[in-house]
């Protein structure tokens, strides 16, 4: 090999090493000279324009200069203008916000790995069972006092103070929930109901009959009555609390995890008669073909695609914005998009609202009070910062100027001056954005002087679905956690999902399934119950 070639190759390889190792490091350096602190309850609603910030309030709480934040995909992602959002937010808050945003589907894997190391973020979003588990394990800062003494709580704009009470763990608050948790409602295709000559089902028998008709009739006018079914879901049981929300009509009052009975005693919900009855209902419906055969291997996207392709007529999915998305996509596929939001059937009584994802300050954060005051509290400031979290950045994610937006060759939208409207997604320019992290219909705080710039733009279909859900839903049971549960949780859920799958697909009877569950889990369950009840 010639010497010059050797030199060239070795330098190239060394540079490659240096660059690849650089990628392992932190990408952002703290910015110097942060702007002054914002006031609580900003008075303008300019949507995050990086304009002058009002004078800072006199406060004894030290303001952090840099805050590291771990977020999931509910915040605008990099291709959808997160950098612009970050810049606008930093300008409003007057501090350097450093986001880490793992892929949404692998978010909790990334959170787990991060907490296993030493480089924790200051703030992290945690939903349902993760919030309880992390709080119980002492990984999160207690923010009870900060919340109780906050200007936000005293502002009179909080519409649901109880929601913060509901996420207390052993009487202490470890997270800030700026919005309701939302949940799933059951949507039924109205065209299918009309074609079948059925009215909206009010109890399980009527619900099952509806599924039967949808399965056995040629509902999609294909000429083949065998290519439709009643309902589909992504899995027979959820992987996260409240577990039963994708097939609630079958589960009804069953809850497959540890729960308290009427006397307050902890029991294993999976071993109850209610769970046996639920398994029998699922098994019967599955064997009759009313439930999508591929439910075991479906992802949520598979279900949505099948729904849009008119493969099934009943879909339990998120309330609110998704109601509009489902309608819109059905119509884009040339189908009738009208959906009936099914009131909870008599046996259910209500839908379940999941525990709201919480913004948590980690136990290693140096200045939790400052982070709460200058990062979390402004999220619901009723002005510019709340607008950023709800709608994004003006001119990037939304606007109110007169313009015509061309989404596709044959789809144009015209807006008048002053009319709030979302802009096309930067990632998918043929689709309009619908919301940012905070859903305006679920937010816990009103705007100052009710000056929400975008509330008029909320789609009536989404609004209707959301209002109905809010009326019909009850909060999900708080997930319980302690060291004993953590020790056995993975094993127990492995066993439970296997039993549910085998029973429903006909590999074993309900009785055999329950016997197998008891024989394999008795020791673990007893130890957990002892730890909870004693």
């Amino acid at each position, binding site marked *: 090999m010639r010497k010059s070639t050797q030199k060239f190759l070795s330098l190239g390889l*060394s540079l490659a090493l240096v660059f690849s190792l650089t990628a392992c490091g932190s990408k952002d350096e703290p910015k110097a000279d942060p702007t002054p602190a914002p006031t609580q309850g900003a008075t303008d609603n300019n949507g995050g324009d990086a304009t002058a910030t009002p004078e800072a309030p006199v406060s004894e709480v030290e303001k952090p200069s840099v805050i590291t934040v771990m977020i999931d995909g509910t915040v605008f992602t990099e291709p959808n203008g997160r950098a612009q959002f970050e810049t606008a937010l930093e300008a409003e808050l007057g501090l350097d916000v450093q986001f880490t945003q793992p892929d949404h589907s692998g978010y909790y894997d990334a959170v787990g790995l991060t907490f*296993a190391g030493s480089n924790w973020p200051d703030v992290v979003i945690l939903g349902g069972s993760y919030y309880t588990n992390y709080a119980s*394990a002492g990984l999160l800062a207690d923010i009870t006092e900060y919340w109780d003494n906050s200007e936000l709580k005293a502002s009179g704009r909080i519409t649901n103070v109880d929601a913060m009470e509901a996420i207390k763990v052993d009487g202490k608050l470890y997270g800030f929930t700026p919005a309701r948790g939302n949940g799933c409602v059951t949507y039924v295709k109205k065209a299918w109901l009309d074609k079948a000559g059925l009215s909206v089902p009010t109890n399980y028998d009527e619900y099952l009959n509806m599924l039967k008709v949808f399965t056995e009739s040629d509902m999609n006018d294909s000429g083949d009555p065998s290519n439709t079914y009643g309902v589909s879901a992504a899995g027979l049981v959820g992987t996260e609390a409240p577990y039963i929300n994708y097939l609630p009509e079958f589960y009804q009052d069953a809850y497959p995890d540890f729960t308290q009975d009427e006397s307050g005693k902890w029991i294993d919900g999976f071993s109850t008669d209610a769970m046996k009855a639920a398994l029998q209902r699922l098994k019967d419906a599955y064997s009759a073909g009313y439930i999508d055969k591929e439910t075991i291997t479906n992802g949520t996207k598979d279900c949505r695609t099948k729904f849009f392709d008119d493969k099934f007529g009943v879909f339990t999915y998120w309330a609110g914005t998704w109601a509009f998305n489902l309608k819109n996509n059905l119509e884009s596929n040339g189908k009738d998009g009208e959906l009936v939001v099914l009131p909870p059937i008599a046996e259910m009584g209500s839908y379940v609202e999941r525990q709201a994802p919480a913004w948590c300050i980690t136990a*290693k954060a140096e200045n939790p009070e400052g982070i709460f005051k200058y990062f979390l509290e402004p999220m619901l400031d009723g002005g510019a910062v709340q607008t950023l979290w709800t709608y994004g950045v003006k001119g990037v994610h939304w606007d109110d100027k007169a313009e015509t937006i061309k989404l596709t060759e044959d789809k144009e939208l015209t807006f008048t001056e002053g009319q709030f409207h979302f802009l096309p997604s930067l990632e998918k320019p043929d689709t309009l954005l619908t919301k940012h992290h905070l859903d305006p219909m679920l937010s816990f705080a009103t705007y100052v002087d009710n000056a929400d710039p975008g509330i008029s733009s909320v789609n009536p279909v989404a609004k209707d679905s959301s209002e109905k859900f809010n009326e019909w839903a009850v909060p999900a049971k708080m997930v319980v956690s302690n060291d004993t549960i953590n020790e056995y*949780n*993975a094993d127990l859920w492995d066993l439970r999902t296997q039993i549910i*799958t085998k029973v429903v697909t006909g590999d074993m009877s309900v009785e055999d399934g329950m016997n197998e569950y008891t024989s394999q889990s008795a020791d673990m369950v007893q130890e957990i119950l002892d730890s909870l009840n004693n």
Partner: protein
Amino acid sequence: MSIKRGQKVPGSKKPLGLRIYNHRWFYVMFAPVLVFITLFNYLPMFFIRYAFYDYKMAQEPVFVGLKHFEKLLKKQDFIRAFVNTFELSIVKLLLNTFMAVIISLLLNEIKNLKAKKAVQTLIYLPHFMSWVVTASVFRLILSPTNEGLVNSFLVNLGVINKDQMIYFLAEEKWWRPVYYIVNIWKDTGWGTIIYLATLSGISPELYEAAQIDGANRWNQMRFITLPSLANTIITVLILNLAKIMNLFESVFVMYNSAVYAVSDVIQTYVYRQTFGGGIPNYGYTTAVGLMSSIVGCVLVLICNYASKKVRGRGIV
């Protein structure tokens, strides 16, 4: 100048520093590899010690000795995953190797260079598809509905009725055959590269001599081609044996709770134990990982020993 056995090579008395300086550019070229291997292969080995600790987030590790090993050996799920790992890996390895050799031999027989290149390109392509995409494609093909290509085919042939469609990915008796077929489809083409390289290195004179001696094509393959490939096959098998405990992605994207009994492997078991809810005990999952590493290492040593006995030399 000729060098006799035992004679010292001129220049070997040079000081080490000078020799390094003379070959400095090779050392610079080697540096990235050394740094990467040290950072990502050797340094992590220090954390194997956590297999003997209770190690949970934000808590100081507590030494527990062999507790995790005792626990995992009592766990039915671990034993099942362990057995599955062996069965799936070994059958996959044998099938893939067998198919790769067969296809290499067939490719070697193609005399039209353009046709050969076209076939090679076609069979290499699946290797570059991610496992996620591969699983999605096969899920569609194997769907137990009218849209599923295989089930529709079977229905049209009258092999099964419309109401008896097979849920290939969720039935225990079908999952493994499907898994092996998908693996063969994806990796066999890539596996042929090394065998084709070996085949191209066989001296044509051997074939010419065999032809003169009256050997037909079958006998040429039997007595020249296959013996020439034998060393490569054994080497590839032994090298791949070291990796048999590392089965993860291909299983993870294709398995589900209905088929854990036949599909759950060590790595998927560790994944669920770590991310399956609750606060994971990294001590336990490290113990599971260490156990599988030890088994992998022992396997390689056994094969190497067997290779020495059979061939007179090992490869490690």
